[in-house]
């Protein structure tokens, strides 16, 4: 006979729980290392490695397009590109700004992972439709939005800051191009999750009321 808290898919939940726990501990470890190296770098004024900053660019020269189906040579222009530049002596303010936003993003990620682990632990004990889980889902969605905001703020400031400070022959650095919309769908996923979390919360609340109706 099955125990009352056994349900179909329990093995998958256990597997996911293990995976998320490993990811959480690795993330904690990586974030700690990142924090320590950045602190050491900031207080000793010795950069451990040149920091990378995202930049937007386009190439000013035309290229040649060789196609076997076309007899005449054709040309192309490299309009929109995104890359990272390693700067040996960047402005300290810019480094601090980027480190703070990276750390805030990492903290949001860690809290999201922790909330996911708590949901999975509750599910493993057959307590899924509870208000606490709905609130945890809501937190995950809100933290996702916050992570997206910190990441975009960091990259947009970097694009704008370096667009008129970098010089390289044949390359025009830009403040805006198509890449500022990169991963924009992530915010919609978070909003969908927020809607699901709210529906879940109302459902859990109704279930609790039904349970306490005598």
């Amino acid at each position: 006979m099955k125990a009352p808290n056994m349900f179909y898919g329990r093995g998958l939940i256990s597997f996911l729980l293990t995976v998320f726990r490993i990811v959480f501990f690795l993330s904690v470890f990586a974030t700690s290392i990142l924090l320590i190296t950045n602190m050491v770098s900031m207080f000793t004024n010795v950069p451990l490695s040149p920091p990378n900053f995202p930049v937007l660019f386009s190439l000013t020269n035309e290229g040649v397009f060789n196609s076997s189906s076309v007899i005449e040579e054709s040309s192309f222009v490299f309009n929109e590109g995104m890359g990272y530049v390693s700067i040996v002596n960047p402005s300290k303010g810019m480094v601090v700004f980027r480190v703070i936003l990276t750390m805030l993003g990492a903290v949001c990620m860690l809290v999201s992972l922790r909330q996911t682990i708590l949901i999975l632990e509750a599910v493993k004990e057959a307590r899924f439709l509870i208000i606490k889980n709905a609130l945890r889902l809501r937190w995950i969605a809100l933290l996702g939005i916050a992570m997206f905001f910190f990441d975009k703020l960091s990259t947009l400031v970097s694009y704008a800051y370096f667009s008129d400070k970098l010089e390289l022959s044949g390359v025009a650095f830009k403040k805006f191009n198509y890449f500022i919309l990169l991963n924009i769908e992530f915010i919609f996923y978070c909003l969908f999750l927020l809607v699901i979390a709210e529906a879940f919360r109302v459902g859990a609340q109704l279930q609790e009321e039904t349970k306490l109706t005598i």
Partner: protein
Amino acid sequence: MPIIVNLDVMLAKRKMSLTELSEKVGITMSNLSILKKGKAKAIRFSTLEVICEVLECQPGDILEYRSEE
């Protein structure tokens, strides 16, 4: 919640135990206990009817509104 459940008062007046009431109304002890402690979110008319029938009282004898002030 400003709605007070006076089930224990009525039980005392009728000199009836919760177990006895549970047997007579057909509601589990745990549910009656939730009701008695005032932890219930709602009560069905059918439940109220059967409790009133067994305890020979009015709904107002069991439920009371008391302002939070």
